[in-house]
């Protein structure tokens, strides 16, 4: 197949085996191992990437379905020399222990802050309309698709809260 996909601003050809999940394509074919495989069944969020501004689980979609799409992975958000604000906040707040869930947490949180800025409601929102706020309760609900088996949740929420407050 001659179709292409943009990953962190670079064009790539899509894989020839249609079975390749977007996650396996990123990790195996492109060597972008920041995106992690936890469950491979949409249950843990370790594989979260951002496609055209929207966060999704890369394990439950086929690379072949993303002709023309723009994917951002953790590698595209920042580098050790030049981390994104959320990457910096996770470091400052110790928002991890083993770090396995962290790329997914940060990709997810990056898109989540935009969702709040768009005033999209969540299950935790008192009202479906009006301005949404990044309260602790909202962050926990909106991030519930990203599990952390080390249980670093308190510091993850602290890191995200700080960035939310700074950008509010």
């Amino acid at each position, binding site marked *: 197949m001659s179709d292409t996909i943009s990953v962190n601003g670079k064009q790539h050809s899509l894989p020839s085996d*249609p*079975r390749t*999940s977007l996650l396996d394509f990123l990790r195996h074919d492109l060597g972008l191992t920041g995106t992690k495989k936890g469950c*491979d*069944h*949409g249950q843990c*969020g370790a594989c*979260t990437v951002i496609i055209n501004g*929207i*966060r*999704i*689980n890369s394990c*439950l*979609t*086929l690379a*072949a*379905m993303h*002709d023309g799409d723009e994917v951002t992975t953790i590698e595209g958000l920042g580098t050790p020399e030049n981390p994104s604000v959320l990457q910096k906040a996770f470091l400052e707040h110790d928002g991890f222990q083993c770090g396995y869930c962290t790329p997914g947490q940060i990709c*997810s949180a990056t*898109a*989540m802050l935009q*969702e709040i800025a*768009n005033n*999209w*409601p*969540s*299950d935790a*929102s008192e009202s*479906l*309309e009006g301005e949404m706020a990044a309260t602790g309760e909202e962050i*926990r*609900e*909106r991030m*519930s*698709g990203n599990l952390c088996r080390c249980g670093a949740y308190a510091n993850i929420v602290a890191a995200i809260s700080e960035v939310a407050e700074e950008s509010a």
Partner: protein
Amino acid sequence: MRPFSYTRARTLDDAAQLTHDDTAVAIAGGTNLLDLMKLQVETPETLADINRIGFGGIEDTDDGGLSIGALASNTETAVHPRVRSDYPVLARAILAGATQQLRNKATTGGNLCQRTRCFYFTNIDQPCNKREPGSGCGAIDGIAKLHAVLGTSDQCIATYPGDMAVALSALDAQVEIATPNGDTRRVPVRDFHCLPGDTPWRENVLEKGELITAVTLPAPVGGTQIYRKVRERSSYAFALVSVAAIIEIEDGKFTRADLAFGGLAHKPWHDPRITDALVGTVPSDEIFDKAADILLEDARGFGENDFKIPLARRTLHAVLQNATEAAA
């Protein structure tokens, strides 16, 4: 995953042609189908990607209702201004399901057609009449915590696991279906899913080659709209029991009581007798109990899921209580 060929449909006609074959399956968001393909529960030889055939829009209908395209994502539906203001029970039901990542990919059509979460169905080493007709049902006398208490058969006791369709049932929405010969037929959501009976593999009324193109909502009905989902943790879990309710009280009496229930059966459960029993009466504990008596008249537990019977009673009671307070 078993090998398959992947084809992208460009038009509805294309998609109908491609999925007419017995070994071909349509893929929309893929969040249910790919999960099941990895488990080899689903083994299509051809995948027809329908994401680029159109039908993703959400538009006003002539009679003041709303048409939600089959390929609109669950997020697009839940955040749509009219869904939030006119059909809050639908926005609430969608937001109570899965996670933001999954809702961003999940579509209207895929959500309606999602398969059961029965552990025996998803494990190909286990007996399951739904997956392998005649192999038996592992859940009867097995792990049945998530299973149905209403409308079961001796073949299958699985539940339809979704939230969105429960709200659609309370709203009396219609499913718009394109048939392979180019016609359109409409089926009420209340009649879209089937009970297991002797054909547990048949989950809805879609015939081979038929595709959902949209779901249409009637003109807004107002009232107090509630979606109450009871689950094992407060986020990101399937419903044990859920209640979608559209309630209106005028002059101290129920004038509208449209209710549907999730987690109890192989389909979103709607019982018009409950509406009949409530409308015209003054809200009270006695009348709430009577509604629950009607709902649960033929309920039958299978051991592990016995708790759903009193839980459904209490959840219905709480919803009617909350709606009464909201109307006061």
